[in-house]
């Protein structure tokens, strides 16, 4: 700050002399049982946090770690029934422990901006993004703007958030924008009042890697001007490149905190080490991701990799969807591939690339408009009931939302029994097989009579895997099977799938948007973009020396974590 510069007179606060924006010591957040409907408990305990100008602080933790509620407490938005105690809780040098709602409101938006994960629900669907930003300007900006000034400011903000053609886009509604554009618009409105601190709660979790990379770059630029950024994420690899400091939270407690380099490359805490080890990618191929998942002790079946007839042969698949405006949309455009016996074929692509349509075509839930699929040389029919009957159970599916894939009335036993019944008509043998499968997927014995909604996300996915294996399928289609899971649970499920592949005769079609996950597991891989397979080949080759420009773009966008070095 130069001597001639005077703090803006319209600011309600005088900027503190120190560059310390937020200083918290011994933060404890608990929920009052009466208000939180009998769920009173401490969610954050003894958290210390300091944010300085020009720094990026990352708070990393899995679901239930208390990272989001910590972020909200910085805005006075911890929620009904939340009790916040701290030895020190200073924001911009002010003790906020005694803050009333009105005082918080002066802080929110104007001095602390918030960017949430889900831009579609955060933006008002009935207002243009321009109006959204306009509101932020009106409420918080340092001075009154004329209408014309505001308009040009909105255009400038959208432009600086990296939205192309901002003068046109400001007049559009959230649903007319893509996910990445919405997230940018949200960032534009969060920075409209030029706040000193930006809090971004999982700002890129729902986005594709290429867009994620751009959003993260944008956030980083914003910090350049002496602001502070708090980045909240469940994913260490996302924050690794960006953050200056990292706090790792587990069950409301800080397990490790320090400069980013140190936390990632030289973690001291076991939990942090586990988190880093759990990240799948090139370095993790053939290695177990989680120390918590015991290897399945079973004899490996003899390899038949070189079997002559491929298990799945898809040729020239085409699928059209009827668009909303009467215009047809080609989701899959001439896709051909083969899956060999006991092979894992990875399919990677961004949202809208047609991956899930491929899953539906291979499972036979959707008939192709052109092209053929054959399994073991026999044509795999479409949805015509009579033809399906003979082949039912040959192909099984593991989806992303396992809870939605279970009949809500069914218990775990009934769910698994349904597919087991195909291979084991005899009741007694069926019962034995169900238990065998539940053992295989390492579900605790007590879960068999329970409903999936009482189980954790990871356990549900195990039930889903057990069901899929029940009919002894030749092909297992996994459509984003780990996308909804925390990193450490994801690691366990990936380990399980890896083991199952060695003890069963099943071939896998493994679909994910997460390149690390696909790379970790797949023997061969296909890269899909706009309904077309742009590249396929052995995983090592495709990922280490991609030929197609799209693959290269995709790989560049993936946050890299040099964990190989970190683990040594």
């Amino acid at each position, binding site marked *: 700050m130069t001597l001639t510069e005077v703090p803006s007179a319209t600011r309600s606060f005088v900027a503190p002399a120190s560059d310390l924006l937020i200083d918290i010591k011994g933060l404890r957040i608990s*929920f009052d049982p009466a208000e939180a409907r009998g*769920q009173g408990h401490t*969610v954050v305990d003894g958290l210390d946090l300091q944010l300085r100008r020009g720094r990026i602080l990352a708070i990393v933790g899995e679901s239930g770690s*208390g990272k989001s*509620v910590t972020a909200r407490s910085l805005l006075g938005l911890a929620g009904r029934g939340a009790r916040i105690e701290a030895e020190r809780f200073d924001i911009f040098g002010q003790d906020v422990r005694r803050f009333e709602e009105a005082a918080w409101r002066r802080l929110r938006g104007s001095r602390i901006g918030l960017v949430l994960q889900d831009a579609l629900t955060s933006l008002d669907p009935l207002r243009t993004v321009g109006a959204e930003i306009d509101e932020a300007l009106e409420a918080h900006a340092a001075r009154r703007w004329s209408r014309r000034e505001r308009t040009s400011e909105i255009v400038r903000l959208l432009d600086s958030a990296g939205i192309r053609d901002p003068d046109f886009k400001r007049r559009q509604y959230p649903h007319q924008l893509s996910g990445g554009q919405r997230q940018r618009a949200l960032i534009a409105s969060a920075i409209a009042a030029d706040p000193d601190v930006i809090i971004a709660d999982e700002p890129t979790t729902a986005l594709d890697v290429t867009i994620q990379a751009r959003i993260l770059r944008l956030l980083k630029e914003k910090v350049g001007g002496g602001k502070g950024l708090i980045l909240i994420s469940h994913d260490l690899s996302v924050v690794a490149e960006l953050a200056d400091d990292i706090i790792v939270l587990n069950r409301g407690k800080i397990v490790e905190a320090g400069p980013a380099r140190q936390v990632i490359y030289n973690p001291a805490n076991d939990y942090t080490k586990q988190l880093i080890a759990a990240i799948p990618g090139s370095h993790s191929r053939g290695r177990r991701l989680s120390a918590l998942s015991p290897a399945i002790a079973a004899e490996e079946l003899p390899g038949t990799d070189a079997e002559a007839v491929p298990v799945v042969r898809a040729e020239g698949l085409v699928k059209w969807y009827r668009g909303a405006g009467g215009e047809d949309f080609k989701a899959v455009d001439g896709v051909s591939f083969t899956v060999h016996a006991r092979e894992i074929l990875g399919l990677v692509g961004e949202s809208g690339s047609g991956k899930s349509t491929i899953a539906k075509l291979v*499972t036979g839930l959707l008939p192709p408009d052109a092209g053929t699929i054959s399994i073991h040389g026999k044509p795999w029919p479409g949805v015509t009931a009579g033809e399906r009957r003979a082949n039912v159970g040959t192909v099984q*599916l593991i*989806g992303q939302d396992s809870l939605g894939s279970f009949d809500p009335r069914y218990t775990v036993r009934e769910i698994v029994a*349904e597919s087991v019944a195909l291979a084991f008509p005899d009741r007694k043998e069926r019962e034995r097989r169900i238990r065998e499968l539940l053992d295989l997927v390492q579900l605790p014995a007590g879960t068999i009579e329970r409903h999936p909604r009482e189980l954790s996300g990871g356990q549900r996915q195990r039930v889903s895997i057990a069901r899929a294996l029940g*009919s002894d399928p030749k092909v297992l289609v996994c459509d984003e099977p780990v996308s909804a899971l925390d990193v450490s649970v994801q690691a366990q499920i990936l380990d399980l799938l890896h083991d199952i592949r060695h003890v069963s005769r099943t071939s896998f079609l493994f679909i994910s948007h997460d390149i690390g996950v696909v790379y970790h597991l797949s023997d061969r891989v296909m890269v899909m973009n706009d309904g077309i397979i742009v590249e396929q080949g052995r995983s090592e080759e495709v990922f280490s020396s991609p030929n197609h420009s799209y693959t290269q773009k995709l790989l560049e966008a993936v946050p890299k974590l040099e964990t190989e070095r970190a683990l040594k």
Partner: protein
Amino acid sequence: MSISLTEAFRPARPLRWDIILSLAFLALLAIAALFPWLIAPRDPLQTDFGNALMPPSLEHFFGTDKLGRDVYTRTVYGARYSLFIGVLSTVLGVGLGVLFGLIAGVSNRLTNEGISRFFDVVGAFPDLLFALVLITFTGPGTWNLIFAIGIASAPRYGRVVRAETLAIRESEFVQQAKLSIASHAKVVIRHVLPNALGTVPVLATLGIGSAILGAAGLSYLGFGPQQPIPEWGSMLSEARGDLRVAWWSGFFPGLVITLTVISVTLVGRYLQRRFERRSVS
């Protein structure tokens, strides 16, 4: 967030006092319908012209009507007819609605569209008006009343069941079931139907209230059970001429109708909330 929806919604709330009162009132009605002589020892049809239009007293709790009949006894005996008509017409309406709703939901496009448009046409009339039209064709009487109200309310249930069926047919667990169950009919019977019917008990409970009200309305117009049967609606109708001099002859049947409808609706709403919460978690 650290509090998942599942956890936040799970704690069972104690029954609220309004639900307890409603259930108690409905229990009393049930006794009145099944064993009216237990709580009303007199004869509901016994006339006594010497005691016509007597105000409420210890002798006659609700007073007497213009024929000297005890209004309390008639109201108690009336529960039988009103509840009978209300429940039975709801059962009929739900039955028809579920049947056609399911058929529309699981069948091909032509049948689906045909049934839906029929529901739309019938549903475009107010229930009571449509029932009135039906009963003018069939003539008055208890059974005709049940049929009229039942048929008129069927589209309401049918549309809900159809929409549920369509949504569940496309749901992920039904898609998944198709991978393990060969026959299409089996998938429908095992997974689609039971889940589509989940809301029906709730809807039916809510529907009983309006069925009782509709039955009372049509009886008031003279289309229901005929004299001297002590049905609440027809009691109201009879009392019409005497209200100026003997408010009690119409007030008490009216009060009981109101309380019954409120109780049934409260219980129905309670069930609805419980059901919705269950599907959230």
